[in-house]
């Protein structure tokens, strides 16, 4: 008999089970259950202040309890707990779309704030056709059917569903969380940044010369905000520009 394995199962049941399963004694069981759940719950609640404000304590706590019971944390890294929770929420079928979108948006904030710095190579700020785009490592492209990025803690509702999706880039600016709306075509260019050159990416969205010029100016603009860190020659990756 593997006693440690049995103990682990009992610890998991005590910590994450829907109800408190006995393990030590009543007082210690309650204490450890509170420690484990309380620490994680605080981290999750801190990560989604707007969702908490709109949905209220009871609803969010109920979802966190479901998370504990059905898909408890897998990450060993404390700051990534909201990402685990977000992954769980996105799979749930009984949660409305705007709340899913809001939790996604709020939970990626920590990921953005802690993302790695860009590498120290030199990059061009000019989006030539033969160059590739190097997006800032903190940048995350999000697609929503609600104006999630415009909600505030004072918001009471999510607003109407949009007819077409909006494209939002979440990124880090001056060590803070920032976000910017972009067009669908610019979103396509960004999504292809790891695979194709600027010219090849533009071919995917338009052949119109004026529009290509306009989209390039949009890329330059994203460069000045910091969403795009720069442009480089990819064959081979060269820092001599």
């Amino acid at each position, binding site marked *: 008999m593997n006693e*440690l394995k049995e*103990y682990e199962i009992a610890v998991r049941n005590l*910590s994450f089970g829907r109800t408190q399963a006995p393990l030590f004694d009543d007082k210690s069981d309650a*204490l450890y259950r509170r420690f484990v759940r309380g620490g*994680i719950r605080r981290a999750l609640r801190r990560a989604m202040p707007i969702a908490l404000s709109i949905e209220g304590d009871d609803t969010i706590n109920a979802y966190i309890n479901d998370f504990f019971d059905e898909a*408890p944390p897998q990450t*060993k890294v*404390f700051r990534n707990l909201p990402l685990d929770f977000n992954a769980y929420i996105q799979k749930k079928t009984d949660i409305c779309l705007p709340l899913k979108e809001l939790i996604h948006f709020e939970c990626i904030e920590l990921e953005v704030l802690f993302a790695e710095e860009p590498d120290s190579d030199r990059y061009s700020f000019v989006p030539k056709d033969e160059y590739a785009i190097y997006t800032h490592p*903190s940048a995350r492209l999000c697609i929503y059917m609600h104006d999630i990025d415009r909600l505030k803690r004072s918001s009471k509702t999510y607003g109407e569903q949009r007819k077409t999706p909006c494209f939002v880039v979440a990124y880090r600016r001056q060590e803070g969380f920032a976000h910017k709306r972009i067009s669908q075509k610019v979103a396509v260019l960004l999504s292809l940044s790891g695979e194709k050159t600027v010219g090849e990416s533009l071919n995917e969205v338009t052949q119109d010369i004026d529009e290509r010029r306009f989209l390039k100016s949009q890329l330059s603009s994203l460069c000045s905000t910091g969403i795009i860190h720069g442009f480089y020659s990819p064959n081979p990756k060269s820092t001599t520009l």
Partner: protein
Amino acid sequence: MNSKTIAGVGLGFRLAIAEEMLSQSKSAADFIEIAPENYLNCGGKRGRYLRAARERWPIVSHGLCGDFAGSAPIDDSLMKELRNFLKENDALFYTDHLCLTHANGAELHDLLPLPFCDEAVERTAKRVKELQKRLELPVGVENISAYARAPGGTMSEEEFVCAVVEESGGYLLLDVNNIYVNAKNFNFDAHAYIDKMPLDKVIQIHIAGHEEEEGLLIDTHGSALSDDVFELYQYLCGVLRRENLDPPTLLERDNNLPSLAVLEKEIEKLKSIRDASFKERE
């Protein structure tokens, strides 16, 4: 900063006091300690703080998710990142808690007690050996505070700690406050506990504050050091000096953080206790 000396008394590096610590012209802390998981692949403000801190102090890494006795396999990717991080930060050793942090497929993000049994000794010793090999560093286990004894134990806490250190060939991070807390919660003699520890294996000392709740002492890292804990630290320093040992001490404070000046007073008091124990030996 070349960290080839980790000595004296250090302070846990926390974001809430990072800016203040970094802006000081002179620091009472001889080194700092961080939880590496919080800094792995980390940019932004936290990354900047770490880079700046590295220029000022030697850094000790104290893990949170080593899961020494857990059944889950070692996370290869996390271990590789950890090894690189420790190298980048000139780590001389690595420590984590002697407890359960993973339970049957779930991460607890808290420190649960282990049963003091042969199986836990064997599993922990195996894991420590593996970590020492993978990290290419000495690895130490920390005695934890507890509020219940896990079922299935066949030995005392001190026997368990000693067995793990001996079987693993690893080291011991001796937490004075945890000894005190457990001595009160489980009614044993804290001084006798220290006397039984393999002092030549003590790689670092931790000290922190605790609070009382419903008749139990809780290791909160959220209050000032108590006189009793200072006294126990003084006793430990005396015992170590008799063996001509001088491991570094780390003041932990994670919650209810006071001003840095208050923490530095505690550091100075710890230093004076250490120094006095040297003089007594002479």
